[in-house]
């Protein structure tokens, strides 16, 4: 399992999760968990995904996600889960 955390922050508009999920589906990336909150019109979302069956390498995946990020006008980041685990779990 190759667990990755995708976070998105930006102005709330319809279809953000739909757009990201469709992209993940096309890359054979499975969503394991999703949580979101809206604070003063700002959308904060975190997805934990499993990227073990992903077709391409991580760099290409990140760069395509960046295109979606600019298309939606929000900040999307993809990072391996280990960095969060190391920092927040003993």
């Amino acid at each position, binding site marked *: 399992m190759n667990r990755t955390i995708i976070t998105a922050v930006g102005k709330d508009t319809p279809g953000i999760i739909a757009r990201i999920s469709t992209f993940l589906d096309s890359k054979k990336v499975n969503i394991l968990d999703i949580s979101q909150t809206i604070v003063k019109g700002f959308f*904060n979302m975190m997805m934990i995904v499993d990227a073990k069956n992903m077709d391409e390498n991580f760099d290409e995946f990140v760069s395509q996600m960046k295109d979606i990020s600019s298309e939606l006008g929000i900040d999307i980041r993809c990072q391996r889960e280990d960095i969060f685990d190391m920092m927040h779990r003993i």
Partner: protein
Amino acid sequence: MINLSEAFETQNMIQHENLDVRTVTMGISLLDCADNDTEKTCKNIHDKIKRLAGNLRSTAEEISSEFGIPIVNKRISVTPIAIVGSSCCKSTKDYLKIAKTLDSTAKELGINFIGGFSALVSKGMTKGDRLLIESIPSVLSETENICCSVNVGTTKQGINMDAVRMMGQIVVRTAEMTKDTGSYGCAKLVSLCNAPDDNPFMAGAFHGVTEPDAVINVGVSGPGVVKAALEKVHGKSFQVLCDTIKKTAFKITRVGQLVAQEAAKRLNVPFGIIDLSLAPTPAIGDSVADIIHEMGMEQCGAPGTTAALALLNDQVKKGGIMASSYVGGLSGAFIPVSEDQGMINAVKAGALTIEKLEAMTCVCSVGLDMVAVPGDTPASTISGIIADEAAIGMINQKTTAVRIIPVIGHDVGDEYEYGGLMGTAQVMKVNKFSCKEFIERQGRIPAPIHSFKN
């Protein structure tokens, strides 16, 4: 499972508080590269570094992209060149040849700096040590990516005052030979006492002879993260202050540990140590002086600064030590003047003097670092400053260092912009009284009484 606030806390540290991994440094032993022919030695050095560190840069970039953490520098430290070159180098020109090989290899591999153009002379000098030290001004003026260091003392062996005297002259000569760039050569030259074998930070990094063939050492950073955390507990008790620093240092170091493990695995080189230093940069907010200010000092350098720095340094270590079983290098808080915007502001305001900095070096992780002084400062005065720092290190059993820049053609109050991580030097006042007669004495200062522990 990680929750939303934890995920955003990590991202906030990286995006807004300048959290980064300052350096992934590969230590490489060059002992097996020594030959009695200089050309052959140079070829062996180039081939070995290329074989082991050929993928260092690309691997670090790959890790940076996957984990979303910036890795600012990719560096190499090598066995002190005075040892490697001792059997083939008959003149300073031969050492310069080795330096140029290292420099071109660094450029070929896309490495930021190679450290280890060094000599360890705490008790005495071999002919090779002397030639290497004499070649330093030419090396620093004719190469770009080489860092030079000379260890002039240890707690176990005392201080080699002949080397201290020589280093004052070498600093001045280097300043003169690089005067067109604000005596920039001196920014890559450091005189140390109790130099660690596994330091990943420049300019003092070298790969000690007790180290394995190759090793990955990682230096973390994060003054901005500590400062942001302390803003949230403004005015609270010392207990809360200490706890906050420890928790933050723990988190920062864990990131370094992760990067180090991954880099070691992917490069197939053993992991050495994490250096859990708070290393400032000229970026706004990425400053150790700003942490001191946040702790309650009107300006860094005010009375109380040494106590605040001692607390900070100790808590950083206590938090970081829990996060990695192998902590080494310099580990603590760095106080480079030109590289830290808060320090520069304190100097400009008249709050921070060389004398106060010297007191602070008793409790920080290293020493007088990136301190600019007038270009006409005598070599003997610079040797005096080096001797003072070495004495602090020797007596207190800690690493101390001097990286001082006599900026030729500039005087107290002048500013010189180096750019990048080196920042802006503010020329500081030096005590005008002479120590020439003391420095001209021959020989060494004996090891202190508490070094005899056998």
